[in-house]
């Protein structure tokens, strides 16, 4: 395989990996605040991207407004789900919420199919498909755009968590809930906020990736890759989620290049199982002490 090909495939993998990273971040944001896993994260991404698309089709909105519509739809959906369903089970164990979100995932996918049918839809892109040529290397603007857009969003998140009151409150809750409450932070508000924030991140990821993979009710399955990415990085670690996502995207893309077709698609899952077995804390995480 020539170097030029390898570069192209790796860049393409980084683009896919950026989406996994954003999905992983969304999962980690909710996990850090509430210690629960939102299995419906991928389907929330799907529904909000569909909402943006529907608005785009109805009113011929510019793409940036479409993205804002998707983010708004995601925020609203997350708020309603958190307030109406998740809040009721606040005292529940982690797997109660996992099961509830599995139920939500089924419902969202089914409802989206009823409203928008199960067919693939073309989605407009910020970026072109014609390759940019750099010497022997050919790069697709859409791949670079996804990577750039995702990195920008990650920087925004970094700023939010380190330089704003809200962000600091969220980190405080992540570290020590009781302590945060004693400090006068409304833990419930942080719960809602983390759901909204995670959904918004998902919506942006959805708008970025939909032009490449097309918009369909099937795209919610990305949550599994997001989870794998988060585990590779160390579940709970935000830099880990980003690194894990990128790594997963690249490995997933390189596998078909070097491995026979029999094994290549099991690679992400084998990595997941291997990481869980060899180093459950992931690349960046710490093992949490279990408390009584």
């Amino acid at each position: 395989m020539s170097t030029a090909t390898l570069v192209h495939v790796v860049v393409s993998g980084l683009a896919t990996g950026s989406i996994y990273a954003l999905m992983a971040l969304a999962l980690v944001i909710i996990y850090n605040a509430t210690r629960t896993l939102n299995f419906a994260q991928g389907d929330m991404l799907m529904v909000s991207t569909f909402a943006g698309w529907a608005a785009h089709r109805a009113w011929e909105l510019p793409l940036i407004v479409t993205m804002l519509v998707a983010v708004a739809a995601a925020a609203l959906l997350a708020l309603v789900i958190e307030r109406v369903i998740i809040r009721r089970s606040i005292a529940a164990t982690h797997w109660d919420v996992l099961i509830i979100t599995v139920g939500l995932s089924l419902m969202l996918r089914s409802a989206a199919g009823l409203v928008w049918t199960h067919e693939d839809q073309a989605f407009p892109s910020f970026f072109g498909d014609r390759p940019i040529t750099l010497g022997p290397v050919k790069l697709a603007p859409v791949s670079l755009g996804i990577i750039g857009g995702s990195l920008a969003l990650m920087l925004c998140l970094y700023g939010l968590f380190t330089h704003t009151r809200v962000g600091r409150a969220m980190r405080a809750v992540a570290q020590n809930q009781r302590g945060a409450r004693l400090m006068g932070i409304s833990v419930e508000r942080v719960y809602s906020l983390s759901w909204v924030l995670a959904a918004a991140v998902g919506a942006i990821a959805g708008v970025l990736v939909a032009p490449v993979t097309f918009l369909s009710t099937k795209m919610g399955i990305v949550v599994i890759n997001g989870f794998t990415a988060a585990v590779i990085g160390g579940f709970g670690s935000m830099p880990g989620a980003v690194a894990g996502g990128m790594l997963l995207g690249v490995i997933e893309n390189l596998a078909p290049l070097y491995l026979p077709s029999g094994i290549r698609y099991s690679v992400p899952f084998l990595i997941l199982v291997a990481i869980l077995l060899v180093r459950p804390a992931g690349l960046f995480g710490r093992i949490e002490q279990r408390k009584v």
Partner: protein
Amino acid sequence: MRRWALGALGAGVLAWPWVAPRYFVFLASLILVNAVVAIGLNLLSGYTNQLSFGHAGFLAIGAYAAALLTIHAPAIPVVVTLLLGGAITAVVGLAFGVPCLRLGGLYLSMATLAFGFVVAEVILNLDALTRGADGLRVPAGRIAGWALSTDTARYYLAAAVTAVLVAGAVNLTRTRVGRAFLAIRESEVAAQASGVSLAAYRTAAFGVSAFYTGVAGGLFAFVVGYLSPDAFDVFLSVDFVVMIILGGLGSVPGSIMGAAVVTVLHDWLAAFQNFRPLIFGAILIACMLFMPGGMARALRPLGRR
């Protein structure tokens, strides 16, 4: 009273093929298969707090093992085939379960999810053996020179096997192992403090759960008569979780009720097509919010009267 109820139930199960239309005999067989899986999953989830989203994978291993045994060694009696299928699944379950011991909660759920995907992928790609995506036709099982080629025959096989496995599960709670399971269910920490080896019993639970599901897989292969990797996707695993959540965690009668209700609902809702996941999702959420403990707990006051 209890003996009477059991007798009546047994008589009903025996008489069913003679009074019910043919389709309902088939449907009853499916209920039995699902009930065995639900009991198996419940032994793992209900007793040792390990939620699995990969039981479709165990079912697939049992199903393919039984089907391939029947194809390549038709002389083996069907009961032995089922046991071997269960044993093979248990071995795989243990091989997978032992390293997963250290993982708690969410991680284990996700590892089992990954397991389910890998199993489907392996079946798809071992096409020399499994015929891959084209699917595998399962010949009728044989017992004492007699082929189980009708819905009724397969129903009786499923009923007999289920009866034995239900009895096994009920009696398990009376053994040392079963009491350890119950202790773990109540409090992992307290169980550990009283000398119950969490690791050992979790592994045991994994093995038993995989064995039950593998035997159910064999029954599934004979009842349905056709296998393909598409049959065993993550949504099937989720269906099994719905069964035990609806039926009640840690309850054998609850598992059976959950399996029966989900299977029958599944059948009724087939005509509603794409509304079906919507309704199942709603059931799952409603159970978690309004009916913790599932049907087993909700119906307990009736039982006392």
